[in-house]
């Protein structure tokens, strides 16, 4: 029997009750390999039936574990085989029909989001990839719980600039389609480089081709716990601080491991991965920006921010990998702007710019995430921003994503309220310098060298 000290018990209770420690998501990955039929309507029916059958108990199991361990499990989600690989159709209307079937299945099983309305096009488009991409504005704008992602780049393939440009058009169309709700549709769409096959976080979750029939992936969280620990040690040197962060993320990750093991057993699924991410919410204290402030920066964006974030991100991973042998997904500190109230305030004050965020994403998860840009941004400017994020992922052999929200009808400085965990953020300026000739060249940026890495 393992001895537990009173100090450890009270620490655990305090982390949960006072410092917002939670399991951010339990995501069930479901393979749709056996759902393809000649008729799209029949395929949609089979997907719907399989999601309901396999994920029917997901919400109840999450609730049971929440009660048993007294730890909040914030989201329950399902990720699917990329739909473009399942639905062999070149008619976007067919893909929209499938999106509605996914939405209906998600509603029936009571989950927050269902991901996998996706395509991988880093080297080129199949006919169904092209149809899916064309369908995104209607499919995502016309449903509530369906999330979409498109992988346009990888370290092995380079950047498909034609896909980048096409996705810029799609993001703008989706922003317009959901203009009445501050273009919120764009919060459910990610453009990826090196998309992970086992990511439990939305909007980018999909169930990759190397995954088992059904898996359980768990996203842990706990920026508040790390922030409190950092704030309680104002005189610690950086090497001492790194050690404290490692110890803290070890504990956070152990909770994820426990929940993943038990949930997978209860749901008759293979245990997948623990995503070692610090994911903020708009709640006070549940913020990556506030960790950076506790480390000694006045605001995120101050000189030194990239260095502080690099240390934080690395320490999180080191602590987490000691706690589980099943790491995966995105694993790192997230820096979304709208979902992190202190990050949004820094953006509003001008301390934090898109260019600084771009530098920050070179040393952490996840890219330019939940960033609101002017609604009248040009297609080519948006494509250029996406390409820049993809380039960082491609060169550094890491995942990067772009989840950009051109707020239809809004200008720099105006605030956009996305609601709930999506939070709110000011519209941030994008450089007005032209790039038409570069973006207009089209084609593909070749895969990079993996040696001579300076």
């Amino acid at each position, binding site marked *: 029997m*393992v001895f*537990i000290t*009173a100090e*450890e*018990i*009270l620490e*655990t*209770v305090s982390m949960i*009750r006072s410092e917002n420690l939670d399991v951010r998501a339990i995501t069930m990955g479901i393979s749709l390999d056996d759902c393809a039929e000649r008729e799209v309507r029949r395929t949609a029916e089979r997907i719907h039936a399989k999601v309901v059958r396999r994920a029917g108990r997901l919400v109840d199991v999450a609730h049971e574990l929440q*009660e*048993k*361990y*007294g*730890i909040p499990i914030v989201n329950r989600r399902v990720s699917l085989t990329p739909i473009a690989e399942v639905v062999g159709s070149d008619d976007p209307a067919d893909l929209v029909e499938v999106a509605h079937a996914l939405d209906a299945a998600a509603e029936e099983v009571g989950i927050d989001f269902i991901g996998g309305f996706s395509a991988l096009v880093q080297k080129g488009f199949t006919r169904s990839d092209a149809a899916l991409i064309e369908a995104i504005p209607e499919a995502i704008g016309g449903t509530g719980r369906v999330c979409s992602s498109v992988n346009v780049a990888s370290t092995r393939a380079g950047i498909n600039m034609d896909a980048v440009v096409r996705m810029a058009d799609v993001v703008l169309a989706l922003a317009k389609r959901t203009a009445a709700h501050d273009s919120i549709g764009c919060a459910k769409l990610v453009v990826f480089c090196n998309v992970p096959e086992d990511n439990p976080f939305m909007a980018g979750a999909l169930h990759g081709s190397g995954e088992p029939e059904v898996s359980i992936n768990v996203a842990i969280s706990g920026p508040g716990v790390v922030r409190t620990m950092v704030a309680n040690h104002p005189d610690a040197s950086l090497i001492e601080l790194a050690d404290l962060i490692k110890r803290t993320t070890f*504990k956070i990750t*152990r*909770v994820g*491991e*426990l929940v993943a093991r038990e949930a997978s057993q209860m749901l008759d699924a293979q245990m997948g991965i623990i995503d070692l991410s610090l994911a903020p919410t708009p709640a006070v204290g549940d913020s990556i920006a506030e960790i950076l402030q506790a480390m000694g920066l006045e605001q995120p964006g101050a000189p030194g921010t990239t260095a502080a974030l690099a240390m934080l991100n690395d320490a999180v991973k080191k602590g987490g990998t*000691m*706690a589980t042998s099943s790491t995966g997904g995105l694993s790192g500190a997230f820096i979304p702007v709208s979902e992190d109230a202190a990050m949004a305030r820094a953006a509003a004050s001008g301390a934090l710019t898109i260019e600084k965020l771009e530098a920050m994403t070179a040393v952490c998860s996840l890219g330019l995430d939940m960033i609101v840009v002017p609604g009248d941004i040009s297609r080519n400017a948006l494509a250029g921003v996406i390409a820049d994020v993809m380039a960082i992922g491609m060169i550094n052999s890491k995942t990067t994503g772009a989840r950009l929200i051109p707020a239809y009808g809004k200008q720099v400085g105006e605030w956009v309220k996305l609601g709930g965990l999506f939070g709110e953020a000011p519209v941030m300026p994008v450089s007005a310098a032209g790039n038409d000739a570069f973006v207009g060249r089209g084609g593909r940026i070749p895969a990079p060298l993996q040696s001579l890495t300076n």
Partner: protein
Amino acid sequence: MRTTVIVTALGPDSHGLLAQVATTIAEQDANIDDVSQTVANGMFTMIMFVSFDQSETTMAQLKEALEATGERIGLQIHVQHENIFRFMHRV
């Protein structure tokens, strides 16, 4: 099957808090295996290891009863399965 949970109670100190929590646990046919309690600066802190047979009570019933008691006597009472504590601090 026997289950062990850890009950933590926190709040302002007053007379008879431990007795009332213990009474509720007894009423639920559960057993107190270990208890530690301190009062510091007027704040009452108690940790109990409580076990029960699932044929006699359930965790949900115990939790509901203790939360009701906590509300009545001004304590925040949490009931959590022991595994979360064992798992969190050790490999």
